[in-house]
């Protein structure tokens, strides 16, 4: 943390200095007031004859001091903000930069949501902590310490009051905080529950209505709501006791100061002005104790955030650049040599084992297999989203680990099943594929991806904004946009990671036709679930439990590969077993259609 603060040490130093100035002025003020009362008004040292001149002179002095104090306070605030916000900014940038450099196994571990909170929320918490420490902490130490010193210089007897009140207040603060803190996490849970019932009802409304369970849902919500309200009330009740008790302690102390003051005035030890000053100091001291409680909370939250953030900052990307500067001329050949892979942290459960596969430049290779058979894992190894556990993955004869990451990924374009779109225009989304692509190229890519038609039918065409996470688009449209993006990249290797699953087969067929005729030199690797999608590929690799069961053309596989035949049968069941439907009777009069 101090690494980041170091840059702003000057501000971090100036802020408390000005703060000291401000507090000193605050502390001087009751003294001056006491002078005004005792000397100016009462004229204690002047046979009880007041001195209005003194009142005015001291008064102006006071205003001067206060103005200086105020200026110090403003400057302290400015410097604190410069320091803490720039510090927060640096941390935020460092954190985001690091997140953008992490390898997938690491982002998987953190989970998306938690990474987002760390970069946004946690940074703010740390920033608050720094600001609080620079300003609040120093201020309160000064007020507390200075207040006690000033009070004791007025008269030692006042110290007794402080000594009695202070521990009591401290115990109160600690007690309440320790009681309330655990309730907050409980409150969060109850709140989540209410939100989740609500969410389920909003997104699952069809099911609720279809089964006529509106009343049941009301009951369920009512229970969650009651729970939340109860917890909230428990917290509020505790707080309700806190404030008056604190107030009473403070007020009792005031009474005590007046009482002891009166005794000391009788003895001639102090003046009435001193008593008034003492009351001011007292409230300053006790206030600072309560402020400490708040600072303590900010700091403990900030430290927890800092711990979470440093987990990110200290996370070194596992997958780093290779050494080779020289890039082979290319063509787009991909080779898997005895490749095995298991996800990091999965205790060695291998996803791929001993894969040997060569994909020739310009070839269309389809990969077919059940969920979990390792299809995505296999293609993830090509742009080094993950590293193979054993064996080698080669692109154009060079081990992918030897490439500079940027250079390697330039050669590979991937369209994912879950198309990730960004909330910019459609044009900009596609242009992600290649900066500087012309509109002509962009339109061509879209038309090859069978997206041009629906884009152009929109009133704003390519300038249509893609709403949050592509909400305004259908699944198939999103996939076609992400395919357009991949095509625009004009990479040597094109990977469709199940990215046509939401397209109807007619559109899919047109897309593949466009790929075949317009991108003949590109190596195409296509993951799919439907046999119909992959039939036309040059070769089909059938993955089964992380092994390549077979790799051949559709016709050959139909002859020799039993797994392939199984899949074929389950998808086109009726073709091979004409009897199952049991409904060969023609023209059932049961259903009549008129148009």
């Amino acid at each position: 943390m101090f690494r980041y603060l170091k840059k702003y040490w000057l501000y971090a130093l100036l802020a408390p200095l000005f703060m000291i100035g401000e507090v000193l002025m605050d502390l001087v003020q009751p003294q001056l007031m006491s002078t005004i009362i005792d000397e100016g008004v009462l004229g204690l040292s002047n046979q009880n004859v007041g001195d209005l001149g003194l009142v005015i002179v001291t008064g102006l002095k006071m205003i001067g001091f206060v103005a200086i104090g105020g200026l110090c306070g403003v400057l302290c605030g400015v410097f604190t903000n410069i320091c803490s916000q720039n510090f927060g900014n640096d941390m935020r940038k460092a954190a985001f930069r690091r997140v953008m450099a992490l390898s997938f196994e690491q982002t998987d571990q953190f989970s998306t949501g938690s990474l987002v909170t760390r970069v946004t929320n946690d940074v703010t918490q740390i920033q608050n902590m720094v600001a609080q420490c620079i300003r609040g902490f120093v201020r309160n130490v000064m007020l507390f310490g200075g207040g006690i010193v000033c009070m004791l210089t007025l008269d030692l007897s006042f110290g007794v009051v402080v000594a009695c009140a202070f521990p009591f207040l401290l115990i109160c603060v600690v007690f309440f905080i320790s009681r309330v803190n655990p309730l907050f996490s409980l409150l969060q849970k109850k709140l989540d529950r209410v939100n989740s019932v609500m969410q389920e009802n909003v997104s699952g409304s069809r099911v609720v209505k279809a089964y006529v369970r509106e009343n049941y849902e009301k009951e369920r919500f009512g229970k969650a709501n009651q729970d939340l309200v109860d917890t909230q009330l428990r917290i509020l009740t505790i707080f309700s006791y806190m404030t008056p008790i604190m107030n009473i302690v403070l007020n009792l102390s005031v009474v005590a100061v007046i009482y002891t003051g009166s005794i000391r005035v009788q003895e001639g030890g102090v003046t009435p002005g001193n008593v008034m000053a003492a009351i001011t100091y007292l409230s300053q001291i006790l206030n600072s104790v309560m402020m400490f409680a708040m600072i303590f909370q900010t700091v403990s939250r900030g430290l927890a955030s800092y711990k979470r953030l440093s987990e990110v900052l200290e996370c070194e990307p596992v997958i780093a650049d290779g050494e080779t500067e020289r890039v082979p001329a290319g063509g787009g050949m991909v080779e898997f040599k005895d490749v095995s892979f298991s996800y990091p942290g999965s205790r060695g459960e291998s996803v791929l084992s001993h894969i040997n596969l060569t994909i020739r430049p310009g070839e269309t290779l389809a990969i077919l297999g059940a969920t979990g058979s390792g299809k995505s894992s296999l293609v993830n190894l090509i742009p080094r989203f993950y590293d193979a556990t054993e064996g080698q993955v080669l692109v154009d004869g060079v081990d992918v680990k030897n490439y500079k990451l940027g250079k390697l990924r330039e050669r590979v374009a991937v369209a994912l099943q879950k198309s990730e779109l960004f909330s910019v225009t459609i044009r900009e989304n596609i242009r992600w594929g290649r900066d500087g692509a012309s509109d002509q190229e962009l339109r061509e890519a879209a038309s090859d991806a069978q997206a041009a038609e629906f884009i152009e039918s929109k009133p704003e065409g390519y300038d249509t904004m893609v709403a949050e996470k592509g909400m305004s688009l259908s699944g198939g449209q999103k996939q076609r946009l992400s395919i357009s993006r991949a095509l625009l990249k004009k990479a040597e290797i094109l990977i469709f990671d199940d990215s046509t699953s939401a397209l109807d087969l007619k559109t899919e067929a047109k897309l593949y036709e466009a790929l075949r005729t317009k991108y003949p030199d590109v190596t195409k690797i296509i993951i799919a679930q439907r046999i119909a999608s992959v039939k036309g590929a040059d070769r089909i690799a059938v993955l089964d439990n992380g092994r390549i069961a077979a790799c051949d053309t559709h016709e050959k596989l139909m002859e020799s590969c039993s797994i392939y035949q199984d899949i074929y049968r389950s998808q086109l069941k009726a073709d091979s077993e004409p009897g199952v439907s049991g409904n060969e009777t023609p023209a059932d009069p049961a259903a009549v259609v008129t148009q």
Partner: protein
Amino acid sequence: MADTNKQAPPQNVPMPGRRGPRGPMIVEKPKEGKKTLGRLLQYFEKEKGMVAGLLGIVVVLVACSVYAPRLQSEAIDRITDGQFSELPAVLIVMLILYGINGASTLIQSLLSAQLSQRIVKRMREDLFDKIVNLPIKYLDTHPHGDIMSRMTNDVENISGTVSQSLSSLVSGILTIIGTVFMMVWLCPQLALLSCVTVILTIFASSYLSRKMKLFFRKRQVLLGNLNGTVEEMVTGYKTVVAYNHQNKVVEEFEQTSDELTKVGIIAESFGGSMGPVMNVINNIGFVIIAAFGGYFAIHGIISIGVISAFIVYAKQFGRPINEIAQLYGQIQTAIAGAERVFSIMDEQEEDKSGERGMDGTKGVISFRNVNFSYVPGKQVLYDFNLDIYAGHKVALVGATGSGKTTVVNLLMRFYDIDSGEILIDGVNIKDIECAKLRASTAIVLQDTVLFSDTIRNNLKYSNPQASDEEMERAAKMSNCHRMITRLAKGYDTELTESGQNLSQGQRQLLSIARAFLADPKILILDEATSSVDTRTEQHIQDAMVNLMKDRTSVIIAHRLSTIRDADFIVVLDQGRIVETGNHEELIAKQGRYYELYMTQFAGNAI
């Protein structure tokens, strides 16, 4: 110069993470402020007793805080005048007053906590009741995040502000009145002078907060942008990496971040200067009081104690003015929130009219000349006619957007048709009691909806009266009994939110079992297009076949086997029926179905 309750205004419950109003909040302007406020007050009407109690306590509190400085000044006077024997009596009164003050603060806090929670609870319930009864159309056409935020943010905001501001407002006004009264009573001349401070306070605070508002609003926008960027880029990280966009993304982020910092520093610096500036003004007021007070005291017009009391009063006077100014903004924001909440509450509820029962239904469905559009002018179904006989399986086939899902929406009365009629056993569904209609029709949707509850409750969702045996039988028929019993807690396994601890296929099986348990006469199946592995796929297929036995089934079909098994196939194209018949007939016809079949199922060569 003690200030009775300066350190923590009781109205402000200190919640972690919710820091006091540093800098003004972003104030939204409500459109129909008065009307909304009126409706909001209706919520308080039911808590009349509590509101009255709260107001009563506030009066006591204000009286205490107005009178306490006077007592303090008396005590100081006793010391100054050397009347020490009279001091204890004053101190005892002070103690009593502080005791009353403490007790009232406590009661006030407890009351306002109760009040706010009661109101927020009722409001949440009302809103939820409304949402449950809204037509599907509303939920389909409004972003869910927006609806959710009305429930979470707006309701919370309203209750917090309203219950807080109620006592603050009253106590603020009363304090001002009381203080002015006391000041004038003690010394009218000094009271007049104190006004200088007050005017200065108002000027300074309104100037500063106007300045601040500008920057705080700008900061809010930038912060929103920043968070949005982070969220989007982290979620879409794979794409960022795949296209080598890391550096570009980081650069953009850093630009926003730098700008945010700049604006943030200015905004916070303005916010931070509020305190010192007020401090200076307060002290100017103090000096004025001391100087003139001293002058008056020397001339014997007032006592020393009065000066000390005035100092406290002057402070007490400025605070509620600031508070009320701030409250105004808060109240505006809350009312804007309330407007959003009420706008949902004002939505028309689902039309559930109809009285006829559906006992002994056979399940004959007829569509007669049905026209329908989701949005006026964009017709989805044109003159749609279809008869489905009891116990038959009808497959709806067609491209996306051809109107398949619409047919289902209409049959369940999720939407009402524009013209024509839909009949079940010859009865118009508009005349059938909505609950009865839906209870005798079960749907299995593409996107499986499960609730965060036990598997048992999820299955029995369709039929709460079902026995455990019936439930298990349904599970067995749907091929998921074994899968469930293999889970550590079996049927009592809690599903996480939207059932994410089960695979897609398993979730589909559960939703089939749920439909089974409903034992409906009519079944609507929306086949999932999403891909599951072959074995689960087989399980699902078999379960569906089981489920369809002896029921009138309408299937939005994607799988060839389902279509081939259907008694009757309806080919839809752009809201019109283009072909009907069974598989063989339609193949023989070599029409639209044949074309569809050849491209979609037999291969991609056309």
